[in-house]
């Protein structure tokens, strides 16, 4: 099992959700987060003075999936979240050791 953590632009979230659903991936956990990447946020020029906008609003999507599903999920997120500009985000794929369903207590691999 793997956990896919995708940090994306808030305005692309609906498209990403739709694309994942279209391919049959419904489950996800979503959080509103703030962060910065290599560009260190954005510097705005406002009437001669610079304003550093350090931490930008983003959406974090977490999905736990079977190993063989990971590539398709990643592809779905990339295709729906990409604008081609700085700030499109990143996807992290992390190994998952155990998954337990709380309702039944069953453990799935």
């Amino acid at each position, binding site marked *: 099992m793997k956990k896919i953590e995708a940090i994306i632009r808030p*305005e*692309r979230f609906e498209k990403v959700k739709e694309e994942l659903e279209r391919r049959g991936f419904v489950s996800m956990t979503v959080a509103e987060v703030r962060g910065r990447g290599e560009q260190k946020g954005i510097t*705005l020029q*406002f009437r001669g003075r610079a*304003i550093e*906008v350090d931490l930008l*609003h983003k959406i974090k999507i977490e999905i736990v999936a079977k190993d063989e599903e990971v590539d398709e999920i990643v592809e779905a997120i990339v295709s729906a979240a990409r604008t081609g500009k700085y*700030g499109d985000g990143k996807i992290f794929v992390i190994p998952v050791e155990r998954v337990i369903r709380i309702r039944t207590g069953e453990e799935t691999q």
Partner: protein
Amino acid sequence: MEPNGWILTSAALVMLMVPGLALFYAGMVRRKNAVNMIMLSLVSYVIVSLQWVLFGYSLSFGDGSDFIGFPSPMPEDLFAFYQLTFAAITLAIITSAAAERMKFSSFVLFGLLWTTFVYDPFAKWLWGNGWLAKLGALDFAGGAVVHISSGFGALALALALGNRAGYGEHDIKAHNVPMTLLGAGLLWFGWFGFNGGSSLAVNETAVRAVIVTNTAAATGALVWLLISLRSGRVGSLAFVTGAIAGLASITPAAGFVTIWQSIVIGVVAGVLCYYAMVYRVKKKIDESLDAWAIHGVGGAIGMLMLGIFNGKFIPQLVAVTVTIIYAFAVTYIIAKVVDVVTGLRVSEEEEYVGLDISQHGEEAYS
């Protein structure tokens, strides 16, 4: 009876419509633009507050060859202040088109020019015994002066500005629905001063204006509620938008119609304003918060239905046509002039980060 106390109260009620509209609009934009949306309404009030006392009132109601003195039934300061609040809320309505993309400094310049070259002439023509009034056109509390002018002005500004980045590609959802509902409630409350005070007296006309205003608003709200049921749910944003459509439409007719006629106005306005909104969305015009569909179309409906009810349709038709053409054309020219002088839009990056930080260095929610 002495009208002064009622008009002073009405002026305060109309002033409350400005923060009411600010909340109404701010709830419908994204959270990164909430402060800016509120500020646009508040700065509209401030721009007009000064413009009006310096020269706006004189342009609209002052003495002069063609500016025939208005027979003020009260101290002139009081009448001038009451009218100031009308001019201010009118400019604030246009900020619908500026949502989430217009430079704040440019809006200040635009607002000053718009009030001077669009609002003041209409106030003069319809209320200052100007040529449309002499033609027989009636506009009780501002169907043409306030609502058509700001609604079609907003359409022109939206076209001059262009759509928001990503408009039509992804959902731009209301970030705070309760804020919008509260704003609508304040608008409705303030409207009693807007229409009720416009008789400029404490008499039966004032009372009638208040009750038909309330009736048309309730009717408009119910009509939109029924329309929203087509999606299987009762839409709260639709509900209050319908109320505003009813309020905008009854405004020109408030002192002249019966309660039954106000229900008819509420129904017609509810249906037609809804389809105007659908048409705008279909045409992919980002007149973001629907000042055109609600105030522009609603004001025109009210003006024309008043003409039907009182049997004097032609002067109303002339007033509506003139207001639409003049407000749209002059607003578009003003927007283009401001674009050349200061630029209308924020940069792409500023729009992405949001206008709260880029224009004000502040955030609505930290």
